[in-house]
């Protein structure tokens, strides 16, 4: 989408605006020294990351590494105690928040039909809903046959596809996914990955948290590896999987338990 960003100038200021959308650019996203503590415990430790447009970034790491917290902090669900997040150099504002969506590990479906779940997010974003539009969204998620069914009675795979369809209905420029396939069978996992790929093709930046190394290999353009609240590596996917730089990542990929000496001394 970088190519879409024209070096034009906003009428009321000096920020460049996207020629097509008429909105300011939001990439790269940069976190600088993002730190989060809870009752004296450091949950995020000076997390500094740069996330570029157009790529599929996969965040990996053992349980408690701070992957989901990093996602939630960038998405604006939690406020770090220290550090900052910038979007193409500007701080978080309503514009960047409105251009992103998040899919959670639990689908968090509303107690309504599948169709009504899609309509809800469209309405809450101030967009017009029409049967044609909603049908299209459901059809792309291969859920048109359950459009009228209560969303919470769908299978696990269908529920997660609906959650992703609901997020994609907002046409986000940035899509966060927090272990969306954690409880899914292989076929459902591939269906979800197919939806993620279509979102990327449509221009969305993907940031995915996963423990599934196979999925990370299939999806990632670049990998962020975290352990004990710190970013240990941020490399191109091929480089990461071929030769991880940190012993923690090496142990993780080999399926070995790794005790971080830095974490145990904190």
């Amino acid at each position, binding site marked *: 989408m970088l190519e879409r960003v024209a070096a034009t100038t906003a009428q009321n200021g000096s920020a460049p605006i996207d020629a097509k959308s008429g909105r300011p650019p939001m990439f790269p996203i940069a976190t600088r020294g993002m730190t989060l503590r809870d009752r004296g415990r450091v949950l995020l430790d000076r997390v500094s990351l740069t996330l570029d447009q157009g790529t599929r970034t996969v965040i990996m790491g053992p349980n408690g590494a701070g992957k989901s917290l990093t996602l*939630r902090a960038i*998405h*604006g*669900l939690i406020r770090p105690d220290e550090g900052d997040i910038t979007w193409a150099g500007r701080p978080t504002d*309503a514009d960047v*928040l*409105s251009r992103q*969506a*998040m899919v*959670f590990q639990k689908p*968090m479906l*509303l*107690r*309504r039909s599948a169709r009504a779940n899609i309509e*809800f*997010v469209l309405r*809450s*974003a101030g967009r017009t809903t029409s049967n044609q539009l909603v049908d299209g969204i459901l059809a792309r998620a291969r859920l048109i046959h359950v459009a009228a069914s*209560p*969303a*919470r*009675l769908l299978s696990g795979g269908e529920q997660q596809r609906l959650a992703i369809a609901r997020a994609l209905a907002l046409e986000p420029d940035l899509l966060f996914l927090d272990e969306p396939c954690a409880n899914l069978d292989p076929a459902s996992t591939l269906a979800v990955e197919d939806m993620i790929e279509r979102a990327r093709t449509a221009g969305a930046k993907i940031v995915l948290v996963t423990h599934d190394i196979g999925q990370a290999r299939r999806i990632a353009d670049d990998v962020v590896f975290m352990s004990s609240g710190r970013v240990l590596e941020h490399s191109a996917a091929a480089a990461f999987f071929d030769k991880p730089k940190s012993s923690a990542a090496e142990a993780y990929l080999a399926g070995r338990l790794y005790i971080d000496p830095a974490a145990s001394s904190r």
Partner: protein
Amino acid sequence: MTDLGSIFSLALSLVISGDQQLYSIIVLSLRVTLTAVLLGCLVGIPLGAALATYRFPGRGAAIAVLNAFMGLPPVVVGLAVYLMLSRSGPFGVLGLLYTPTAMIIAQAILVTPLIAALSRQSLADLHTEYDDLFRSLRLRPSDKIRALIWEGRYGLSTAALAGFGRAIAEVGAVIIVGGNIEHVTRVMTTAIALETSKGDLALALALGLILVTIAIAVNAAVLSLNRTARRLAYA
């Protein structure tokens, strides 16, 4: 004293015959109670949802007060409303004392804290469940409350039912502000009290039977609604 069997048969014949006096009392009771519950829901449910959703200084105290108000003594509420609506009170000029409106006001005051407290309890879990989603969607506070209420609609019917149960069975407040005037403010509970004191046990019992029947019917309807909702995973 007439034996219990004959009182029962007399009561049943009053119900079956469509006794005018009996049915006017029933209609007024339902009108007063349903209006009070409706008002209680309009105020109590959004209040409960707001308390379930937002963190602010004094929230704990507000919840404690609300919970304490669930047990408001009806006669105290009746007395307070009486003082407000009596000719020398601040709202005396409205001339509402001894009218069904005064009874509705008293009952609404009684049921609102109950509905609000039960709504808060019911919606607090839902708020935990959906908080991340609603924040991710950047919902405005009013939209968040509206969405939460809609998601909890079946659970909230139980709160409304509790309000209905309290209002329909209430006698202390309505007798003080309504005065139990025949054809004007006489409702089932005040009529039962009066007829029992007069010794007309048949009418009192007939009214009692109808009161219990209505309570059971409303409970059954709400229960059935909730069962259907659970089956569809909407509850």
